[in-house]
């Protein structure tokens, strides 16, 4: 019986798997079109028609290390003949094998991206259409035949994403020109209006409160590094707060969790103290490093809050799970708390525990609002131009699509 099965299934692949939760089967069993594996547990499966054509090519418009494999559906994976359960993709660096399974696709799919490759290396692919079935004993069997070999494909990175560039460049140009134009207008002395933002109107009072109470003013520029744009916004706002602190002679304390943020914040605070003519009041220890560890940092700040009872606490930047721990402790000691973040998942906690919260883009507009500097005001106004354009495009697309005149939503798929 076994000999008969072997001879009939010359190009048959059968993968016995104990349970669907054991995906390792695919990686443990290098396969190619000459390999024959037969399940010892009946019933036997008939392999579906093989994939006859496979192509592999470098994924276009990417940073490299990726190859896109495409294939024609098996003749058994068409309407009326749905005998294919899935496709598995086999890869080798040599046309002669051995081939390892590097991914799988559900029936009906014709492409898969292999993101586990090195640049500049030739890879060869095969695709096997598999039929699957559970045995009465609960084992899952797969049977299939691998396709012919694809041509050699080599991954490489591209400097420009052509479609993305073509679709985004006009926006970038319009926004950039708007920003430059508004900066120029502001520099000429024209007053550019920015609507009041609730939390920011209270900043000066909050700093003054710390001075009057003779307690610390703590500023936390988020828990992420300088490669996070929210940290940049937080450090920019710190410059303005430091100026106010220097003017009011408040005790500023900036505990940070990243070394680069510490260095940048020191420069910003130092410059702020110099600008208001208080270089004597600047001390490098105003900005100090605690730890990179998220919860270690939160534990240290909790201790600082309850021991030193700062009058005012600012949270401006990117935060994660530590946000509520810090904000709740600050709330418990009765400090005035003003927070700002664009991390949507942490905003609810700041809204619940702080007196004022800058939501999302308000954080980025805050530095312009506080400083009234032409460059920053110009950028806020330029971004407003972009919002108007987006609004117009969205409404136009909505109307055109709803009244079945045209569907322009595809223009914005980048």
């Amino acid at each position, binding site marked *: 019986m076994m000999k008969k099965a072997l001879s009939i299934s010359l190009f048959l692949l059968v993968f016995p798997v104990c349970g669907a939760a054991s995906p390792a089967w695919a990686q443990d069993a290098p396969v190619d079109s000459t390999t024959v594996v037969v399940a010892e547990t009946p019933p036997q499966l008939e392999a579906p028609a093989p994939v006859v054509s496979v192509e592999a090519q470098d994924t276009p418009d990417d940073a490299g290390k990726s190859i896109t494999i495409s294939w024609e559906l098996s003749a058994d994976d068409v309407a009326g003949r749905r005998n294919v359960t899935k496709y598995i993709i086999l890869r080798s660096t040599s046309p002669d094998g051995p081939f390892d399974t590097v991914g799988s696709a559900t029936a009906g799919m014709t492409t898969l991206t292999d993101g586990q490759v090195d640049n500049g290396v030739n890879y060869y692919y095969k695709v096997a259409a598999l039929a699957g079935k559970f045995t009465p004993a609960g084992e899952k069997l797969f049977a299939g035949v691998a396709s012919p070999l694809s041509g050699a494909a080599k991954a490489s990175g591209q400097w420009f994403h052509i479609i993305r560039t073509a679709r985004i460049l006009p926006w970038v140009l319009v926004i950039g020109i708007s920003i430059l134009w508004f900066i120029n207008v502001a520099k000429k002395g024209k007053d550019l209006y920015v609507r009041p933002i609730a939390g920011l109107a209270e900043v000066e009072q909050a700093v003054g409160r710390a001075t009057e109470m003779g307690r610390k003013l703590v500023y936390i520029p988020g828990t992420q590094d300088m490669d996070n*744009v929210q940290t*940049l916004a937080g450090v920019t706002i710190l410059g303005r707060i430091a100026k106010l602190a220097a003017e009011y002679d408040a005790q500023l304390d900036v505990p940070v969790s990243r070394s*680069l943020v510490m260095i*940048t914040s020191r420069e910003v605070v130092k410059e702020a103290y110099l600008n208001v003519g208080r270089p004597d009041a600047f001390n490098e220890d105003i900005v100090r490093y*605690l730890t*990179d560890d998220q919860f270690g940092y939160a*534990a240290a700040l909790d201790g600082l809050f309850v021991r030193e009872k700062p009058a005012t606490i600012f949270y401006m930047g990117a935060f994660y*799970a530590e946000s509520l721990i810090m904000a709740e402790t600050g709330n418990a000691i009765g400090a005035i708390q003003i927070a700002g973040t664009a991390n949507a998942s942490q905003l609810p906690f700041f809204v619940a525990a702080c007196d004022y919260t800058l939501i999302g883009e308000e954080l980025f507009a805050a530095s312009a609002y506080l400083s009234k500097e032409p460059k920053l005001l110009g950028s806020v106004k330029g971004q407003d131009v972009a919002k108007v354009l987006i609004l117009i495009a969205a409404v136009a697309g909505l109307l055109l*699509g709803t009244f079945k005149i045209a569907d322009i939503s595809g223009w914005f798929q980048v």
Partner: protein
Amino acid sequence: MMNTKVVGYIVIAVGIAVFAILAASQGLAVTLGAFFTIGIFSFLYKDNPYYKFSEAAFVGISAGYWFVSLFWQNMYSKLFVGVGAAYHTTFVQGGGWDDRWMMLIGGLLGVLMLMRLFPKAGWISRWPLAVVVGATAGLYFINYFVSNGILQLGASAGPLQRYDAAGNLDLWATISQAILVIGTLSGLIYFYFSKEHKGAFGGVAKIGIWTLMLTFGASFGYTVMSRLSLLIGRMDYLMSDWLQLIN
């Protein structure tokens, strides 16, 4: 009446004895983990010496751990190993340019940053900072504009009515799309800074902030659940790994 100091010493002695017994029976590392876990939890009562000790140990150890970790991840793995491999590829194997040579730029910026240690050359350390800040702003501009602007625009700028696979009007999907569009556009108006929120404009902005608040409410509940799972994880550690009360 016993002196408070004596009571303190007795408490510490008993604590050490209990710790020693548990460390001997359950393992030192697990018992240390439990010791610090309880120390951090003691903050729920109030600030106390136990918490202060745990906090100081946590901050100090984690700072040291991160230093070592960053050294091996960046200095060693990327700079030393990466550049070494690039040298091997280019000069030993004759394979030409290797992208890992780019690691030298990072190394150079790191050296410039260390110029802070020399007062006369301290100003040079501003250059790597300028590179980091400028590169971050430039790189993230496109990412944020695509994810927060263009893709949301694409999701809103289409027909309101949605159809199922059979081509029939899908009422719930249509309502969902209408909510999405109203929420996105009113939210966009809320974040328009050049006009005060008054009149009809203010009314639409109010819809935007209400949409945001509803989202925050849902997010709050969801995140609290994940925080509870963290608490459960710690309790599981204390009960299973340490005291072995739960199998």
